[in-house]
């Protein structure tokens, strides 16, 4: 009760204070109203006074509570008026009421508390609230939607979908999930669980216990000491090296730096050679680095005569011998730096030569096997040789052997010294290649005289084959990169707008004939393009031609007669390894076979036909001379009269000799370098995306 009363008085006091302030504002107003009310409230006032006098009996003057017990004209905003209190308010009272009266302390406190509290912010407008709601909802839904991602991705990437899709068996849940839902029920289970828990064994994660982990983490004292010592040493070394480097950097002597640089270069070369032997892959990388440095050098023009120093020297060079020398040195250096590494280029050339030598033969074989004019004849002829290739690597395939044999003959013509020299050379080249081709095969450094050349050749052949393979592999990426760049360009063009999937036209194509027509139309469309494509082909082929030409000259004399090659088996095919008796037997059988086949195909001479065809093709491909002689001009003309030889010679424009044919040295192949338009209609122009 008391508390309630107190609070009530407090509130009343607060109100009073407010009313006083109000009074202050309304002072003149109030005076007026009071005079007006005088008549009515006379009795009232008396009663008030009486109350006051009673109240003042106890000696202490009290603040009067303003009460309004009836309707009055003037109603203050705060529901209170000083009317009835009977006292005039003075400004002075208002100025210092709080100081004097102790009972106002509570109000003050309250006021300060109210002040310290911040006002509540205005509520957001409706749109804003809605926007926030939407955003939250969207985030939520997109999160729930993302749970479908793996399924969608799987479906999209699937090579084949069979509808209706079967429901997949859910995968086995991880052990944690299973355990979280599972409780030990039987006493035995509980006991086991308790034991596990007591020993801090991992319940879910089948890994290490905390103890084990801790023990693994811990390091023994000795180890720690050692480690610390190591670290210290490393730090000391580092600082030492740093100091040294600083010192060296400060040295101004150019000579010193030159020497240091040279030393470094030498060292690097040595290391590189070492590396080549030990780790060819790393060596290749190193090589690439060197190549890059060379490229940088070429680009930077650092050691050419474009620098400030070089220009000044160039001016001086006329008069000063030293300057001239310096310039020359500089240029020499440039040359040296920009020179391609000799080792690599050499081997490459050799490889190219080998290719020229060996690849055609391989091509020959395949051609014989697969696409010859008469596969019966050819396959039978060659099958044994092919088999033998696969059976034992010692025995080289037929054509190759032949070639080698020819070489052998050459060798026998020369003196023994020559043979020796050649052997050595071959050995050397072999070694080089073996190094380059990362072949671990050890090759004896000394070539003994009695080792048969054949063996060497066979070895060589195997090696070169490997090399070729490798070359092919290494060359492929280059080509592809070129292609990809082309494609990128094409794609850029194509990206602009995707080609429509359909080819819509107002004509109908309902029958097979119509459809065939469609194909022809396409073909005529492609006709316009061949020139361009042909060009591309030629440019692509150009480098190959270069490699071919020198070899072709060499082999001109050795040109094998195709007829001989195919019809008679050269004796050189016999390998030394195969026992002769077996050989004979096989020979007999083969002869039989051949006989049979020959009898069967007695009528058609396929080989001669082919040769004729080839001759025609060669003739057709040769550029023709242009004869501009006009009979009858400047001399008599008529039937039986020919223009004079002189005139003919004069007006005959000889066609330039075209590039050598690619199949020049391939007796049983016709390579046509013309783009076959008939085939082109059926071929794809670009690689499909």
């Amino acid at each position: 009760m008391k508390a309630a009363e107190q609070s009530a008085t407090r509130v009343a006091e607060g109100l009073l204070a407010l009313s006083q302030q109000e009074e202050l504002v309304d002072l003149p107003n109030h005076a007026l109203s009071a005079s007006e009310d005088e008549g009515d409230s006379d009795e009232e006032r008396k009663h008030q006074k009486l109350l006051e006098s009673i109240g003042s009996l106890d000696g202490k003057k009290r603040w009067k509570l303003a009460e309004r017990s009836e309707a009055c004209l003037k109603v203050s905003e705060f529901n209170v008026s000083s009317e009835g209190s009977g006292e005039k308010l003075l400004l002075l009272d208002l100025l210092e009421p709080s100081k004097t009266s102790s009972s106002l302390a509570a109000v003050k406190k309250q006021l300060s508390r109210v002040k310290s509290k911040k006002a509540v912010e205005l509520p957001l407008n409706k749109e804003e609230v809605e926007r926030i709601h939407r955003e939250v909802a969207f985030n939520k839904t997109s999160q729930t939607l993302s749970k479908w991602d793996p399924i969608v991705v799987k479906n999209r990437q699937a090579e084949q979908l069979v509808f209706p899709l079967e429901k997949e068996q859910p995968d086995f849940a991880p052990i944690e999930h299973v355990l979280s839902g599972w409780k030990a029920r039987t006493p035995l289970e509980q006991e086991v669980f308790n034991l596990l828990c007591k020993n801090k064994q991992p319940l879910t994660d089948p890994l290490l216990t905390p103890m084990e982990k801790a023990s693994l983490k811990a390091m023994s004292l000795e180890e720690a000491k050692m480690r610390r010592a190591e670290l210290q040493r490393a730090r000391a070394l580092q600082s030492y090296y740093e100091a040294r480097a600083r010192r060296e950097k400060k040295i101004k002597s150019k000579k010193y730096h030159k020497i240091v640089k040279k030393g470094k270069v030498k060292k690097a070369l040595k290391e590189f050679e070492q590396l080549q032997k030990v780790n060819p892959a790393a060596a290749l990388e190193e090589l690439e680095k060197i190549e890059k440095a060379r490229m940088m050098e070429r680009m930077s023009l650092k050691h050419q005569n474009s620098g400030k120093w070089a220009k000044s020297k160039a001016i001086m060079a006329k008069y000063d011998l030293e300057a001239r020398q310096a310039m020359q040195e500089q240029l020499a250096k440039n040359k040296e730096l920009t020179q391609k590494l000799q080792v690599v280029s050499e081997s490459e050339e050799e490889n190219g030569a080998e290719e020229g030598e060996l690849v055609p033969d391989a091509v020959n074989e395949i051609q014989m096997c697969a696409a010859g004019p008469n596969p019966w004849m050819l396959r039978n002829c060659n099958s044994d040789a092919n088999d033998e290739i696969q059976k034992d690597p010692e025995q080289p395939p037929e054509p190759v052997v032949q070639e080698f044999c020819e070489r052998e003959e050459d060798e026998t013509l020369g003196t023994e010294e020559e043979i020796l020299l050649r052997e050595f050379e071959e050995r050397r080249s072999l070694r080089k290649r073996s190094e380059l081709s990362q072949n671990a095969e050890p090759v004896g450094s000394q070539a003994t005289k009695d080792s048969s050349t054949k063996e060497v050749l066979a070895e060589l052949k195997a090696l070169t084959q490997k090399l070729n393979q490798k070359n092919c592999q290494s060359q492929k990426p280059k080509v592809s990169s070129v292609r990809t760049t082309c494609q990128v360009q094409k794609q850029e063009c194509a990206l602009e707008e995707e080609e429509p999937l359909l080819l819509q036209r107002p004509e109908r194509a309902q029958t097979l004939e119509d459809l065939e027509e469609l194909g022809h139309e396409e073909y005529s469309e492609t006709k316009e393009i061949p020139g361009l494509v042909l060009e591309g082909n030629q440019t692509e082929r150009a480098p190959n031609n270069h490699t071919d030409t020198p070899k072709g000259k060499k082999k001109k004399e050795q040109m094998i007669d195709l007829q001989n090659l195919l019809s008679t088996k050269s004796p050189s095919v016999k390998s030394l390894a195969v026992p002769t008796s077996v050989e004979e037997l096989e020979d007999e059988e083969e002869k039989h076979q051949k006989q049979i086949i020959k009898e069967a195909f007695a009528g058609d001479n396929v080989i001669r036909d082919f040769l004729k065809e080839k001759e025609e093709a060669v003739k057709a491909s040769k550029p023709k001379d242009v004869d501009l002689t006009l009979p009858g001009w400047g001399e008599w003309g008529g039937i039986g009269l020919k223009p004079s030889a002189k005139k003919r010679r004069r007006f005959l424009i000889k066609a330039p000799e075209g590039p050598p044919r690619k199949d020049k040295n391939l007796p049983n192949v016709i390579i046509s370098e013309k783009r076959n338009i008939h085939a082109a209609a059926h071929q794809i122009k670009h690689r499909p995306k």
Partner: protein
Amino acid sequence: MKVKMLSRNPDNYVRETKLDLQRVPRNYDPTLHPFEVSREYVRALNATKLERVFAKPFLASLDGHRDGVNCLAKHPKSLATVLSGACDGEVRVWNLTKRKCIRTIQAHEGFVRGICTRFCGTSFFTVGDDKTVKQWKMDAPGYGEEEEPLHTILGKTVYTGIDHHWKDPAFATCGQQVDIWDEQRTSPICSMTWGFDSINSVKFNPIETSLLGSCASDRNIVLYDMRQATPLKKVILDMRTNTICWNPMEAFTFTAANEDYNLYTFDMRALDTPVMVHMDHASAVLDVDYSPTGREFVSASFDKSIRIFPVDKSRSREVYHTRRMQHVICVRWTADSKYIMCGSDEMNIRLWKANASEKLGVLASRERAAQEYNQKLKEKFQHHPNIKRIARHRHLPKSLYSQIQEQRIMREARRRKELNRRKHSRPGSVPVVSERKKHVVAVVK
């Protein structure tokens, strides 16, 4: 002379038991089959030609409506049943196998704006221009009974579309706002608005069933969530979207058929760029529907044709048209993904094969094997120019063809102009805007 005879070991070709697979004495070594590729090429070419020759997709025309067909609905349980609503307020139920109308209801006065079936297939809902939503029984009334709706809800405004929830007894209508209704109540349980323009169509997501998409006349597509009773996001496109369709296999993908001749496939989580812009139509696209496999969709256009698009391609793989088919208003892909139905202005519903040259009916096993082999061959040689050319060839009516050509020229001119502008202005001042981004005006959160 010794003549070698052929002698074979029966072990090589005789099965041990009857259940063993038949051994095929064939050597697959490619060197033994030097002409394999060329032979296959010829076969592929022939297969392609035959495919085109047999490409007769049109199956049937269902006539009976006395006004343009405005909406179509598939029966969820029966493949043969289709419902259609016409512009004169008539709803017809069709049997596709008999190709006959089995029931006719005068459902509304004015257009039947929307029609949808309940997920269980026992009843269907229609909305019309007479501001009513009516629920009908799927079964025809018995003899002597009158055709009456199960329920009728009278609304305050015109409803322009309706779609039923895929699992719950709730449906959504659109008009001035999107309303979600419980089937048992006559007032919507919640109505969602965003903006003031009228909404053309509303579609429930078949996977995340509480999601809805709607498109309004003020060019925007709005997504809603039924559970949270709030719109989620809005994307504003260049022109009005006529309708959308959710991908039945991917919860967050939908395709919008737009008035600007294109279709846009969106991932609803990233609305600022469509995943794919499908262009080929020569006029406004009016309706779109997904194949149940979710790999393709069919679109109906004002240019009197329907087209089939692969989801991940921007150009169509097929175009269907007939001389008598006018503006196609609605299109549906049947639930077995084999057929397409389209309703058009000239009162007919047409039935097409989804795969134009497919042979209908039961296939013998050898036939099927041959078909599969041919399919594989076609796939293998699809990039060869001759085959490609034949496979791509489609006949178009002259008017449509010239329309497409004209549009191509216009597009080209626009592109050239932009290129020129870019060439002659400060670099960077005319940025390259990709085709995908070009059509999205804004995304409103």
